[in-house]
């Protein structure tokens, strides 16, 4: 039972106010600045809908919205089609090398999406190795650029998310449910569609939302592989970056439209998933069976094929990083020259990739733990507000947040643009919702009576928190923090808006090198990033000792 739900100005009241202040300054203020910019004419100072009218009246712009929808929906659909059966096969059957496959899937989900895009260009692009190979055989492969390419890259990038989500849900399905289905005459594929799919529908909806949001906000992939096929984030980026004056208001309007759309999608998903919500808890999870004959061949070939295609871009990029280059062109033979260039020219970006996310991580952990505590243990109107505020970044695309922060903090006294601080703040804001969710989940597992025991034994409110609650949360928080860390080092869409020469990160460096055509250096940098990711994942597995990854 909860105590009285009123706000008290004790130590936790002060913390609440502090956090509200943080969000007001770094989230609401930038967002309102953005909104203001979108509806004010900078010349006359008058209210205007000109920017919005311009967007919706010109198909050049408006089509990008439709394009984004097409791309995101298709990618979401394909990710679910690929990821769900894979997760089911993994849960239902013994598969050789499953542990390794698991790790590979996680790695492919953790890499920056645009690296996949650029690798597929190297493989299937106009002069890609596979394209050239088939052309020499007299077969012309279809064009990778445009819609098909974007969907291909996004689906392969995002199906692991569906896989991880569904895998978690399947672990919660009690075997007796499936046995009951079998007993009632429903088995095999029929059982999968009639029983398993309905049971994991809430999970599929959640995974679908995540995949949709990611693909809708993904800026790097369509930028690299889209060519003429322009999506929303690309036009937003190019309007904002455009040197020609007077486009800021228009970019802001596009950003506002983006937020409105993601909000609608978010609310629709919430509405649907609330209707499908139920709790599952397995006493006896599904047992892995040994597949027989034909089925065995099918199970193995499907699993290996999907995983192989999933990791192919990573592997190929790593391979090219060791190839000899002459200028921008790969030439036969191997060398470490790409790495030499990478370290000599862009060593700073490697350092930034370690320092910026690390700073952000410290802030994130502190704020997330505090917010989780407020939300779980100190429910009142103000902490509910904090809860809602902290979830806003979930629906704000990275590019939009970057633009909003830049708009808000580009003049004195709040001149932060170009500093490392603004990069840190951007990461904190973007990643907080996830860490808060996981911290809340951890805290809900800890019974309130533990803290009350400490209080009854003479510990103050704050001491009970720091000496009892926090140590109990530590393990869960650390593993969550490592996942956040991995997400942050591969973050592109905000960083590409906010970076300057001094604060360039690895992902931005890779991105700019790819745009310049320095594929060798880009490959070397990608490999470094992948190595960092893999090391972090190994650390995660070591700390988490066999527990599943949840995002």
């Amino acid at each position, binding site marked *: *039972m909860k*105590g*009285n739900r009123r706000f008290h100005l004790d130590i936790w009241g002060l913390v609440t106010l502090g956090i509200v202040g943080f969000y007001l300054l770094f989230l609401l203020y930038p967002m309102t600045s953005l909104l203001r910019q979108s509806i004010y004419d900078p010349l006359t100072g008058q209210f205007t809908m000109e920017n919005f009218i311009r967007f919706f009246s010109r198909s050049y712009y408006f089509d990008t919205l439709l394009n984004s929808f097409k791309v995101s929906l298709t990618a979401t659909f394909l990710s679910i089609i690929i990821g769900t059966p894979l997760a089911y096969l993994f849960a239902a059957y013994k598969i050789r090398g499953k542990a390794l496959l698991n790790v590979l899937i996680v790695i492919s989900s953790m890499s920056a999406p645009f690296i996949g895009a650029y690798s597929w260009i190297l493989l299937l692009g106009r002069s890609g190795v596979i394209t050239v190979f088939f052309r020499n055989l007299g077969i012309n492969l279809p064009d990778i650029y445009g819609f098909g390419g974007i969907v291909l890259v996004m689906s392969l990038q995002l199906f692991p998310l569906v896989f991880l989500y569904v895998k978690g849900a399947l672990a919660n399905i009690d075997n007796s449910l499936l046995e009951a289905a079998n007993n009632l005459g429903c088995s095999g594929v029929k059982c999968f569609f009639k029983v398993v799919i309905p049971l994991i529908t809430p999970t599929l909806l959640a995974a679908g939302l995540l995949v949709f949001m990611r693909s809708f906000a993904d800026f790097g992939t369509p930028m690299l592989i889209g060519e003429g096929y322009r999506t929303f984030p690309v036009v937003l980026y190019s309007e904002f970056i455009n040197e020609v004056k007077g486009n800021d208001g228009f970019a802001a309007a596009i950003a506002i439209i983006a937020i409105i759309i993601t909000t609608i999608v978010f609310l629709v998903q919430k509405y649907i998933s609330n209707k499908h919500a139920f709790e599952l808890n397995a006493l006896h999870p599904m047992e892995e069976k040994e597949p027989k004959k034909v089925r065995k061949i099918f199970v193995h070939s499907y699993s290996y094929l999907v995983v192989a295609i999933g990791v192919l871009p990573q592997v190929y990029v790593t391979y090219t990083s060791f190839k000899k280059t002459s200028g921008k062109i790969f030439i036969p033979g191997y060398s470490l020259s790409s790495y030499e260039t990478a370290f000599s020219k862009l060593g700073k970006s490697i350092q930034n990739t370690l320092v910026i996310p690390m700073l952000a991580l410290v802030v994130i952990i502190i704020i997330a733990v505090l917010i989780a505590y407020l939300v779980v243990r100190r429910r009142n109107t103000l902490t509910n507000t904090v809860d809602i505020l902290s979830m806003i970044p979930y629906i704000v695309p990275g590019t939009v947040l970057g633009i909003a922060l830049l708009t808000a903090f580009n003049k004195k006294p709040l001149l932060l643009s170009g500093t490392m601080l603004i990069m840190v703040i951007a990461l904190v804001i973007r990643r907080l919702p996830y860490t808060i969710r996981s911290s809340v989940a951890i805290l809900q597992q800890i*019974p309130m*009576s*533990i803290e*009350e*025991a*400490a*209080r*009854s*034994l*003479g*510990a*103050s409110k704050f*001491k009970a928190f720091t000496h*009892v609650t926090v*140590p*109990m949360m530590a393990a869960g928080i650390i593993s969550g923090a490592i996942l956040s860390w991995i997400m942050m080092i591969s973050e592109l869409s905000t960083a590409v808006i906010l970076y300057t020469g001094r604060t360039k990160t690895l992902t931005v460096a890779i991105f700019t090198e790819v745009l310049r055509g320095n594929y060798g250096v880009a490959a070397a940098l990608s490999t470094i990033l992948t190595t960092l990711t893999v090391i972090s994942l190994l650390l995660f597995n070591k700390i988490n000792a066999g527990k599943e990854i949840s995002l």
Partner: protein
Amino acid sequence: MSKILIRNAVKRYGDHTVIPNLNLEIKDGELFTLLGPSGCGKTTLLRMIAGFNSIEGGEIYFNDTRINDMDPSRRNIGMVFQNYAIFPHLTVGDNVAFGLKNRKLEKEKIQVLTKQYLELMQIAEYAARMPNQLSGGQQQRIALARALVISPDVLLMDEPLSNLDAKLRLEMRSVIRHTQKSVGITTVYVTHDQEEAMAISDTIAVMDAGIIQHVGTPKDIYQRPKNLFVANFIGRTNIVPARIEQNTLVFPSGYRIKLEQLKQIEDQEVQCSIRPEEFVISKQGDEGIHGIVKEYSYLGLNTHYAVETQGSRMVEIVEESSLEDELKPGQKVLLQVKKDKINIFNQEGSRNLIRSEARER
């Protein structure tokens, strides 16, 4: 050591009043049990005493100190929680020492006291272990040691045995009883298990809907329950309607019992609470309530019968098993009652007419 005085206590959640107006006096050194069905407010009251729930009205005193607004950490209470609330990140010894460290005692003193109470609860050998390696019963002992080591004025226990299996529950019941008596600490114990309450308590307060229904010794609440709720809640009983006519209890079947205790009670419709063991079954005769045996179950020591009486009313009867054959279903019987033991309530069930204070009113 403290006595606890609760005066006109009120607990509200928003517009919902959980405890309307509650008065209690808990004597120094006694084991006082709050007993009631789930949702009756017993845990709420315990948490008000502990300081984890706010108090919306009235006063709570430990001796002469009003503790309404005192922080839980300053009330000097020991508390044992339903789930024990053992700190999983501290060793058994550190769990027990936790409260002493908060009181900033000297190191040697902490060590001595911790050891003393670990020994009292017979868990000294586990001092260096982590709690998750110990069984439920042992965790319970840690919780007790941790609560007692700080020499609290009051010990509060919130359904401490409900997570244990039946055998351990019996064992820990006597451990708690024994420890409480040897330390001599005022204890408030919350449970919904009446057998546990009967076995362990000096005094029991039966609660329902936020109201204290009856405060008394285990014997008193079983034998002379103050109202129909208590009669029904404590043990098993049959409620049989009847009338009082000139100091005589008259059942619908015509069975009449003259009772001394009814002397000054006016004629009225009443409800009788007759416990299963307060019936006497006979096969023949002309006095008693007519009935037909419907079911029986032989349980060794006792035999249970379900007997249908007038108006299809079923009553439950327990007899000590005898060597003779049991009564078979269909058998017609006559039921008499042990007239000294039964209880008679007014029509509303709010007063026990047999209790002396009822006659005084």
